[in-house]
């Protein structure tokens, strides 16, 4: 009897970042990092309720999984755990099988010069996902867009990474969407920020790593931007409001990028971070308000729309052209509305 369900198989190639530096800086740091990385991966992989293959080599790993939803749960848990421990990686996900063919070991012991061979060859899908990871200039995951079925798209989100030092050109990709546990829920008011302390600490960790990267090499922090973009894309902006001169019901990423002065300065120190501010503003504008139409089309939402644009104007973020933002992230009509509001505010002396 044939199985009516189409057999699924996905592969991930995951490469640990910063190992070169760890190995250079401290002989103990490198093995510790590798050990934490491999243990975390294996422990989370053991929870996958589907066929799994894991193949480690050096500071990288191939993983094959027989279920998309199980794979997404796995990668979200790995991202949360390792990023929280300041262990960063970049990875690509694609459909396919590893088709690994182990090379037979030839160990000749007891001779003057022992001969020891081991390893595996992998199939073409493994090569493809390796190169997808190589060309991905961000942190976290990139998933092959065309491989997704309609019901799988919801678990991913649009994101982008900059391709040049100036962060003026962007490449769009799809990331695994952050779940509610990672990205947190709406914060009723700034006094209740501790309710989402966990997500704030998670974002702090990534921002600190980005700023540290900038001290190692100029503009290195831009590699972290894709993760912030994915966080914004995964957040819920439905309930955000501006009332009595106070932001209400905002997602943690909004607080971290927009409201908190010290972290905002941190973001502004990253070349290309202007996109984060615009993306947040666009999310506020394009999300449906109380009357189920996008806020920027609803005059009842003018206060909240104008306030978010006013923040961009006051940070002097609207003086340069808006044209170079990736279209997958900010729709042209939203950007146009944003531009109109910013000009109007500047004309009125804000």
């Amino acid at each position, binding site marked *: 009897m044939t199985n009516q369900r189409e057999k699924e198989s996905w592969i991930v190639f995951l490469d640990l970042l910063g190992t070169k530096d760890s190995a250079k800086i401290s002989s103990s740091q490198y093995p510790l990092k590798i050990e934490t990385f491999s243990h975390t991966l294996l422990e*989370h992989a*053991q929870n996958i309720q589907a066929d799994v293959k894991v193949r480690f080599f050096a500071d990288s790993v191939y993983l094959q999984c027989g279920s998309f939803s199980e794979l997404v749960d796995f990668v979200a848990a790995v991202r949360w755990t390792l990023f929280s421990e300041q262990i960063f990686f970049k990875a690509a996900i694609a459909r396919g099988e590893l088709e690994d063919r182990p090379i037979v070991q030839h160990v000749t012991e007891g001779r003057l010069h022992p001969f020891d061979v081991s390893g595996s060859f992998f199939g073409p899908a493994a090569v493809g996902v390796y190169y997808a990871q190589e060309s991905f200039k961000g942190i976290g995951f990139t998933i092959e867009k065309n491989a997704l079925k309609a019901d799988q798209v919801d678990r991913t989100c649009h994101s982008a990474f900059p391709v040049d030092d100036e962060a003026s050109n962007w490449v769009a990709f799809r990331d695994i969407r952050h779940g509610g546990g*990672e990205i947190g829920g709406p914060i009723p008011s700034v006094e209740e920020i501790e309710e989402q*302390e966990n997500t704030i600490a998670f974002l702090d960790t990534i921002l600190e790593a980005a700023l540290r990267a900038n001290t190692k090499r100029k503009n290195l922090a831009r590699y972290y931007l894709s993760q912030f973009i994915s966080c914004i894309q995964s957040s819920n902006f439905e309930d955000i409001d501006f009332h009595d001169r106070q932001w209400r019901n905002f997602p943690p990423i909004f607080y971290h990028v927009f409201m908190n002065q010290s972290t905002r300065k941190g973001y502004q120190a990253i070349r290309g971070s202007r996109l984060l501010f615009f993306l947040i503003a666009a999310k506020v504008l394009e999300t449906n308000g109380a009357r189920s139409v996008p806020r920027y089309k609803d005059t009842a939402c003018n206060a909240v729309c104008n306030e978010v644009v006013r923040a961009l104007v006051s940070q002097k973020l609207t003086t340069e052209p808006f044209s170079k933002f990736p279209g997958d992230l900010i729709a042209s009509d939203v950007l146009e509305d944003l531009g109109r509001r910013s000009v109007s505010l500047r004309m009125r002396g804000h």
Partner: protein
Amino acid sequence: MSTGARILLAAVGQNNVTNFPIPVIQKLWELRLLSAKKNLAVTAGIRLSGVSIHPILGSPQHRNFSEWSAARGFPIPCGQSYRFIVSDNGWDTLPTVVTNNPLLVAIDLQKADGYLGPHPLDVDVAHTGATVKTVANHLADFLLDISFANSYLPAQIIQGTLGPTGTLKELFRKKVIFAHQAGHLAEETAPYVSFSALARKSDKFGTEAHLDAFVRLWDEFMLRVISGAQISREQMARTILNYPSYRNQLPERPLLRILEDAPQGICHLVVQKRSMEARTNPKLRNKLDALLTGLDSRGSGGRKFGLSFGDDPPLHAAELAASDAIYLTRVYLGAK
């Protein structure tokens, strides 16, 4: 007492892994303890030290804890290491409390903060409950408490009290009995209690009220402990001089004389620092002069020091300590 408080995060399921406060726990020092450390150093002359955090994440697949922890290097000696297991589910086994690991606290993640007592599987293991939102505060409470015990003067007094054959386990039991007798703890069966947790009650961690109550609890306990401790004033002088900040700063004989003259109880050692700010800022210099003049002070020039007696540090001491013009140290003195 050497360093190393290890936090072991264990039995975190795939479904709730992102609800678990790993980032907060990773940043526990930065988010909670650093400000408490600064505050206590300035306002009470207490230097927290000797605790570092090494979180390790577990999963429910590894129910055999001994085997699982062995694979993670836990049997490897790492100085004095305190272990905290945070679990979303019950364990089949628990690691044994040994000399190198004098304390094990098992925190069950549940819907409400729970009772502190001995663990059903092992009476030497402290067992308590916390929610996902409160677990970081619980861990901070334990670490603050252990940091206080690790700070150099309490450590010396504790060692003097326990004697050559004493174990930290005995001291922890003394703390529990003290807390029970003082009416802070309902039962006296737990192997350990954190004074920070008792002091916090419903307060947020690190508030002025919380830290003040925490210091008062330790004061009461230390005064009870030192009344039975065999620590001579000479030993105390040597202990102070062994501290890196004081090694080349204080003359031995005057320090011994000042300690010999001091009554039993709490006092504060004020030591002038070679501070440019104190030399060039007239307001600060005046306050420093006023402070040292008012104390039983010894030494001359930039090496002046003095003792003040009583539970509270002398006037201006906090401001001068915050401005880096003095070292301020809380000292517990036993009977002569």
